[in-house]
């Protein structure tokens, strides 16, 4: 081939390649709706698909693992996506179980036929060991986390600026805490802009442990022995106070199904609500419930 023609061919080839790849990329994502968090849908393949809250996810995975050990023919897939995705996934047949770490709201209730409370989780409030306060009311917590109270002396502690530690937006733990304390009101999360944000329970624990005058919140299952927990409205967080409702900052773990639930799904849920399943719940640090159906 003559050099000029070859050069043109090479350039043409390059252009075609780039455009093809770009076109494919465009087509694939041009729809604009990103797959939120979880990888592609696979509804058809696994027998049971659980999608939704990332707080529930580790528990679901543990339950699925023990269940599949005894039932080798069944395939259970666990995805995340957040409580907000639970009912959506059910509706679009991506999931057979929607997992939530909060109660259903009204718009979701109509799409769901049955809801099972599979566990409960408390959210403990922790402070640094140098903080002299042992008890806080929900109102005080709300004021601290919205920035209205900034000094420990206002709630009975020393004269020191409160270092507020929060979880990131979208965290189920954050949602539970802000809802129950009133920081979340009228669909608006009023957590103060000055709050330090850490993206995991471990990070919150570490930060509160090492930062004087700090306050934070973590799932009850993850409270480590070297941080100080405070009472809320006079009640210490524990399994019993969550179950009897006296510890206010708590959230339910829910499995929601539609009437299209297949037999594999129903069998799995039966396992989860049984003593064996609830033992797993406890083993993973959450609070087992007695059979409760809504």
């Amino acid at each position: 081939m003559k050099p000029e023609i070859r050069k043109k061919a090479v350039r043409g080839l390059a252009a075609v390649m780039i455009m093809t790849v770009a076109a494919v990329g465009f087509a694939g994502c041009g729809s604009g709706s990103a797959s939120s968090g979880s990888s592609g849908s696979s509804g058809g393949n696994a027998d049971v698909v659980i999608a939704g809250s990332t707080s529930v996810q580790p528990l679901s995975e543990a339950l699925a693992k023990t269940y599949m050990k005894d039932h080798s023919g069944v395939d259970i897939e666990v995805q995340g996506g957040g409580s907000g995705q639970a009912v959506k996934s059910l509706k679009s047949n991506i999931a057979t179980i929607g997992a939530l770490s909060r109660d259903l709201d009204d718009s979701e209730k109509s799409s769901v036929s049955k809801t099972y409370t599979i566990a409960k989780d408390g959210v403990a409030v922790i402070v640094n060991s140098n903080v002299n306060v042992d008890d806080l009311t929900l109102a005080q917590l709300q004021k601290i986390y919205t920035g209205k109270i900034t000094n420990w002396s206002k709630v009975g502690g020393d004269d020191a600026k409160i270092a507020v530690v929060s979880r990131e937006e979208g965290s189920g733990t954050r949602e539970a805490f802000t809802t129950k304390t009133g920081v979340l009101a009228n669909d608006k999360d009023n957590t103060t802009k000055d709050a330090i944000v850490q993206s995991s329970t471990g990070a919150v624990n570490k930060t509160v442990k090492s930062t004087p005058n700090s306050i934070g919140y973590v799932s009850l299952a993850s409270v480590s022995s070297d941080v100080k927990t405070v009472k809320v409205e006079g009640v210490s967080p524990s399994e019993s106070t969550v179950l009897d409702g006296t510890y206010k900052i708590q959230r339910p773990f829910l499995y929601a199904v539609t009437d299209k639930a297949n037999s594999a799904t129903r069998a799995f849920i039966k396992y989860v609500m049984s003593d064996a399943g609830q033992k797993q719940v406890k083993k993973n640090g959450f609070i087992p419930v007695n059979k409760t159906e809504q």
Partner: protein
Amino acid sequence: MNTREKAIEKLIFICAAVSVAAVALITIFIFAQGMPAIQRVGLFRFVFGTTWSPTNGSYGILPLIAGSMAVTLGALVIGIPTGLGCAVFLSEVVTKRQAGFFRSAIELLAGIPSVVYGFFGLAIIVPLVRGLAGAVAPDAGATGLSVLSGAIILAIMILPTIVSISVNSIESVPNAYREASYALGADRRETVTKVILPAARSGIFSSIILGMGRAIGETMAVLLITGNVAVVPHSIFAPTATMTGTIAMEMSYAAPDHQQALFAIGIVLFVIIVILNGFAQVVMRRFGGAAA
């Protein structure tokens, strides 16, 4: 040319095309995902808005841009003199063998994963900065999670880049220049500052650009130690949030609108990097071409 060479040529061309295609694909993907968010919020409100609160529908990223710029600038302010000093030490002061030992240590720094840097920062640097802040500005209640902590850790992370490339640049300065300088009666300090560093400046400058790129793109380490507070920092002891840290932290939980906004942050980051690199090219061309 025979067919074998033609085939190889085509093969390596495909390799090159793949890299170009990858860059093109990533760029197009980010823009496609993020543009809807920018269109929805409005470009001006997005880039200059001061409230980032996606669950409440606010998508202003100015605090994030400020945070990224602050820690990067801080990293350069700390890292450039330290890195250059180190490079001069290794190439001009110590013997080859001693230099080898130092260089291995510094290169080891480059291999440490960024999450480990983050934990190191959290465990060691943050308390130190908290103590310093307590001494300098006791009423501020600084926690140590701050711009300064981020800048220090980033400076350590970019040190290997700056040192390695600068050392190579300095060592490639012809010995003839050194000899000429000594023969004229200059001492070592003058020779290094007036002859060698200027002669090595284009390589040194590239090392700084590379370091800056690494600092701006760093995610895990800053996520752990800057506090992730989406407020424009008012002092080096104040906590802040970076664009990269915010994207990483919120991506897994994000609802579709929120997720598009995070991609939009990616667009802004991309544009900023392109601008900075372009600016650097211009400066390098001016600098490198003209004689001192």
